């Protein structure tokens, strides 16, 4: 690797980059407040960390006291999610978009795939726990990002889509797009008849069209894209925690309504989603069946799925 900035991308602000390059030649590319030749852009690598009830995520590990059911044990075997529109926030509320490195693997345009698995028992996985790019070199107090894939990129052909949008494990189907979040897990693991597959797969629903293998004919009825904004975030030293224990705090992970998806796969008719979707910072509409009146379950405020961890 000849470029410690790990930057392979094109960059829209050419003149800004030239200034930054000159500044970098003098004093490195990080921010340095008392330096008169301040670079106009700086690098930022936003770090993510998975947890369940405060315990770090380890693929295949079983966590305790998850949700409201008994025995409350929950084994987690997958943890991937997309984010987009990552921006750092100034004290006055102004936002500065993070211009993502176009690395050909984890990031494409304004979308990044996070894969918090390291080894799920069958060998080391590449994994990715950070979003990397360049941002205007100013003082920031917070960060905002959206979970999911924007509509314009969510419904492109998986066979020819660029990475990370061609990641087969994150595919739903063409009309439905990608899984925005993929948490696979098992409630009451190892408990014989009581073990229940319980996953959280977030994605857009009610995407119109008569063919699951064609793009939707219009935007989805429930895009299910939520923005998360966190205060007191220092990109240089803090991490963003994603705690699925918070998303599952009102669920019984050892129970799944028969004839519905295992856990919650975002379906509007899936009772397990009632307790989960509002804890993903999303308003959820539950529709039991044809003719049933829609029930509204507003997002739980404040959201607790993501938080800032200081070093």
């Amino acid at each position: 690797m000849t470029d410690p900035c790990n930057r392979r991308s094109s960059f829209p602000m050419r003149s800004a980059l030239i200034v930054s390059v000159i500044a970098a030649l003098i004093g490195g590319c990080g921010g340095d407040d008392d330096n008169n030749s301040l670079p106009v852009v700086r690098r930022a690598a936003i770090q993510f960390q998975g947890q369940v009830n405060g315990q770090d995520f380890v693929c295949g590990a079983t966590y305790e006291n998850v949700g409201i059911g008994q025995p409350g044990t929950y084994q987690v075997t997958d943890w991937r999610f997309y984010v987009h529109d990552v921006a750092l926030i100034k004290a006055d509320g102004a936002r500065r978009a993070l211009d993502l490195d176009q690395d050909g693997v984890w990031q494409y345009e304004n979308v990044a795939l996070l894969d918090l698995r390291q080894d799920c028992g069958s060998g080391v996985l590449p994994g990715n726990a950070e979003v990397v790019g360049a941002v205007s070199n100013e003082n920031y107090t917070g960060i905002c990002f959206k979970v999911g894939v924007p509509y314009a990129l969510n419904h492109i052909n998986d066979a020819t889509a660029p990475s990370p949008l061609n990641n087969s494990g994150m595919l739903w189907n063409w009309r439905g797009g990608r899984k925005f979040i993929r948490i696979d897990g098992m409630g009451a693991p190892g408990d014989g008849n009581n073990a229940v597959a319980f996953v959280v797969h977030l994605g857009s629903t009610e995407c119109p069209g008569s063919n699951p293998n064609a793009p939707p004919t219009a935007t989805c009825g429930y895009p299910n894209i939520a923005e998360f904004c966190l205060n007191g975030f220092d990109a240089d030293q803090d991490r963003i925690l994603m705690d699925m224990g918070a998303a599952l705090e009102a669920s019984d992970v050892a129970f799944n309504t028969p004839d519905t998806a295992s856990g919650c796969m975002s379906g509007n008719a899936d009772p397990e989603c009632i307790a989960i979707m509002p804890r993903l910072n999303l308003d959820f509409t539950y529709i039991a069946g044809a003719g049933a009146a829609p029930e509204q379950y507003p997002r739980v405020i404040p959201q607790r799925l993501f938080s800032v961890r200081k070093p």
Partner: protein
Amino acid sequence: MSRGLIRIGALAGLLAVGGCGGDDSGDNSSAPPQELPRSGYSWSLPPGFPTPQEFAENPLSDAKVELGRHLFYDARLSINQTTSCASCHLPARAFADGRVTAVGATGQVHLRNAMSLTNVVYNATFDWANPVLTTLHQQALTPMFNEFPVELGWADHEAEILDRLRYDPLYQDLFVAAYPDATDHFTADQVAKGVAAFVSTLISGNSAYDQSTLQGNRDAMSEAARRGQELFFSERMECFHCHGGFNFSQSVNHSGTTLPQAEFHNNGLYNIGGAGDYPLGNRGLWEFTQQPADMGRFRAPTLRNIELTAPYMHDGSIATLEEVIDHYARGGRLVREGPLAGDGALNPFKSELMPARFSLTDQEKLDIIAFLKSLTDWNFLCNARFADPFGNFERHSDCY
């Protein structure tokens, strides 16, 4: 951005000691894929399909594919000249063989069902559950040299078999054309590479489903198949969690693939003694890892041409598509008695992605079968480019 600017950026990075942001741990596993070999081979790809990954060790050419087509169908490639690759990969059955499990040249019975070769070039791994077998060239050597059981029987008979080719004027021409720079043309490795080249061209993407989905001919699929498609992609049946994407298998690889996508799943066929065991010799990924969670995990094969590749599963233990649907509807198979007794639905290592159970009406079951049959590709099955040059193996009767 111009190349010059990229260079300046790189230079700046080098000078600014320590760099910034990017945490380069030295792990290159997430690096972009290596540059493709520029074989210049012209793939004949269906609309909407990705370009297969080529491997530098075996660049493709028309001549190599043509050599491979002859080798694939030639019974002289087996120890006793009874069996060719095609004997277990029949063109009339979408390159599967219709047997419960395969039978080698000397009559030894294999533990596993012969897989269809449909779209194998897109497989992330080969065989039913071999995580380290990642090229068709390596795979082709397996049936050639396998001794337990004997498949083609090359072990200890390599020179004898190669001599059959060496003194045949047909193969003299074919090998020279395929390997113009080689000093010794008649090697086992170059046989395997030729077979791999041919097999990698067995690309199917012109089924009724494809015509309806990617070629603008909506009516190519029946209404029943269309209803079945909705079921296939529903959260009730969950078929697409393992059989999703353009190849109806998540475990795919192609030139645009950047991250490992090999997947293996336990689908609840067995649960011997209630402890999760699968029958000895057929334990899937576990045989490589000995990790309990890998017990019974096999690769989900493509569903393209699935109508023609019965019987199903790694051990051929389900005879029909209808019974496959019943198996998944129950959430696993109950073996009531005998040494394999146990309820697969309760296998502790069963995939989380498989529904606990689901129910279908009779009509829905017909619809899902109609959808699976819409994945049958007659252009593929009847393609003369894939046919036996010796005329011993017939294509499907509907091709004539």
